[in-house]
């Protein structure tokens, strides 16, 4: 029920945005993330973006996993 999925922001109009999720486009609300901009990935929950995905942190986390995988070999 607290499911949220990553969506790519394609267009921003006032408090709404057009996003793409796996090739499908949708209109969503930016009431909760007014700072979202084109090119951001947001976490989409019941029609609202609830947070903006930090892409640097995502890469950092994946690098950490790679390092762990190397270390335990």
């Amino acid at each position, binding site marked *: *029920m*607290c*499911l*949220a*999925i*990553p969506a*790519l922001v394609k267009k921003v109009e006032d408090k709404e945005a057009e996003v793409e*999720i*796996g090739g499908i486009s949708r209109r969503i*609300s930016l*009431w*909760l*993330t*007014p700072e979202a901009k084109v090119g951001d*990935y947001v*976490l989409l*929950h*019941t*029609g*609202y973006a*609830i*947070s903006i*995905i*930090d*892409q640097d*942190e*995502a890469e*950092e*986390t*994946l690098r950490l*996993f*790679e390092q*762990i*995988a*190397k*270390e*335990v*070999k």
Partner: protein
Amino acid sequence: MRFVVEFRDGELAEGLITSIRRTSKRKVRFMEFCGGHTVSIFKYGIRQILPPTIEMVSGPGCPVCVTATADIDKAIALALIPGVIVTTFGDMLKVPGSRSSLQKARAGGADVRTVYSTLDALKIATENPDKTVVFVGVGFETTAPTVAASVLQASEQNIRNYMVLSLHKVCPPAIRSILDAGEVKLNGLICPGHVSAITGSNAWEFVACGYGIPCVVSGFEPLDILQCVEMLVNQVEKRESKVEIAYRRGVTPEGNLQALKIMEQVFEPCAAKWRGMGEIPNSGLRLRREFTQYDAEAAFEIKTEPAVEPKGCLCGEVLRGVKTPLDCRLFRKVCTPENPVGPCMVSSEGNCSAYYLYGDNGGR
């Protein structure tokens, strides 16, 4: 899909699993609070992958499951009032109330519609100016801000026939209640990911500091959960208890301030009844007085008979992590997703439904 597939990589998972196996020495029990985590853990067979030192128990983090029978009855009673259209999320439809369900009410002629978003409910309200559209709001901190935003939107756009029955709940008081009851001893808490996207990971400081229990906020992909378990194990072995985030791409310590502000503006805390846990102070959200005109409880005199709990159903114990669905005599025999006796079997994130669907991956 970006930020999804990368976090399902098998080789990286191997690395994390090996690291967990090497580090984990002490026998521990971790609880995943959130139903979304329960589903991921079962789906990816994570319980089996973990070393025998680690026991996992599922918590009450499914908003549909913890909704009290009396509140379901209220939603059904609302649906039966002429001129009312009840809108809600899909999972609520089949949840058995004392005598009926929203689905049965609909079959009997009530206007009950499932929506994906409150935005759809607002649209139904504008399209049906002569009806009152009530959104039955269930959900935790992830969802409550979206419902708060819908109320502000209704007010901004002067939509007067939109209302909310607020059955929202907030998570920290429920976790406190479980810890205070002491029925399950926990050595670590897998904190909800999207609740924390709103509240911030700081919301769990009281668990780490006050109860000395390690806390790690997790995402929902298998690598997220493995990283979370790895971090919990590390804390346990170092005898630390702090709040960490294994979902840094989505969660910060402070959370979403805008969402918190909107939620605060529209709702205020109140006592709420949780299935299996009784009434917990300050664990619910009701509309503030300024927004009374959007409050379905204020607008309608909702009359219900005393609630009757489903007979033989152990949802309460299951939600508290004291029992598993396998302890329930009705599980699989009488109670199935097609014919659910309790809400934990109805909801796609309910513990009983997870055991039913992914049984072979389930309780060891």
